[in-house]
């Protein structure tokens, strides 16, 4: 545990439920900003990814170039949500905080996004209730 660790019995845990897949809506950006802010404010974070959000952690996401931008793959540096999750995992670790992520398993199966990055587990609604009922507070962000 490093000197910055504050993960003790006083650390609060916040749960977030999210539903949007990557690359489709501004909600995804706001969601990740909230997760980052929660860690910044020294909260443990739990995420239940439901429906399209199970693709956020898909390990096979690939960056690409963009001819319209006149940038190749390396220059474009296209964001990938799996990298954002990894960055938040790293931030949590550095701060001695917990960052847990569960994908709804049935949502994973029907979308075929079974390969998630490390640290993202498979679960279901009972896990979401467990996350929420044992957290300090929960925010659900629906899709439209």
């Amino acid at each position, binding site marked *: 545990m490093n000197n910055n660790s504050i993960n003790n019995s006083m650390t609060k845990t916040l749960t977030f*439920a999210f*539903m949007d897949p990557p690359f489709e809506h501004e909600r995804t950006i706001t969601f990740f900003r909230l997760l980052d802010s929660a860690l910044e404010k020294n909260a443990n974070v739990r995420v239940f990814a*439901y*429906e399209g959000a199970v693709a956020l952690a898909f390990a096979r996401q690939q960056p690409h170039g963009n001819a319209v931008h006149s940038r190749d793959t390396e220059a474009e540096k296209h964001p990938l949500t799996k990298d954002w999750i990894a960055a938040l995992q790293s931030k949590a670790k550095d701060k001695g905080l917990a960052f847990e992520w569960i994908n709804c398993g049935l949502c994973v199966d029907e979308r075929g996004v079974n390969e998630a990055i490390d640290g993202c587990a498979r679960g*279901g*609604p*009972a896990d*979401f*209730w*467990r996350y*929420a*009922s044992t957290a300090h*507070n*929960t925010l*659900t962000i*629906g*899709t*439209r």
Partner: protein
Amino acid sequence: MKVLQVIDQAFRTTGEEQDDTILWLTQCMRSAGANLEVLLTGHGVFYSVQSRPQPPLKFGNWQQTEPADITQDIGRLREKGVPVYAVREELIERGLFGLPVQLGVEVISRDAVTQLYENADQIWHW
């Protein structure tokens, strides 16, 4: 902890998922012991006056055999003791007021919604 599930959309997933995914989530969490109530508002009030399963989809030679049955889903919630409310003014605005409301669904006024919010520990708007 008591949670109010607010559903203001309808038919978003009933074709592909063969249910409303928030009503489904609610049923699953209830089975896990969650203390939940459901508020149908906006287009969600359509669910309170459904009377039959969804029409099955057909694409080419693919035929759906298990279309969504919202009436059954709400019935299951009621059997599990989950209160389900529908907002009267939303029914009126959509020309649905006067249709038979599913047994066990309580129609409340918009004014009464604030009390539901007050009585819940958390409100999850999907």
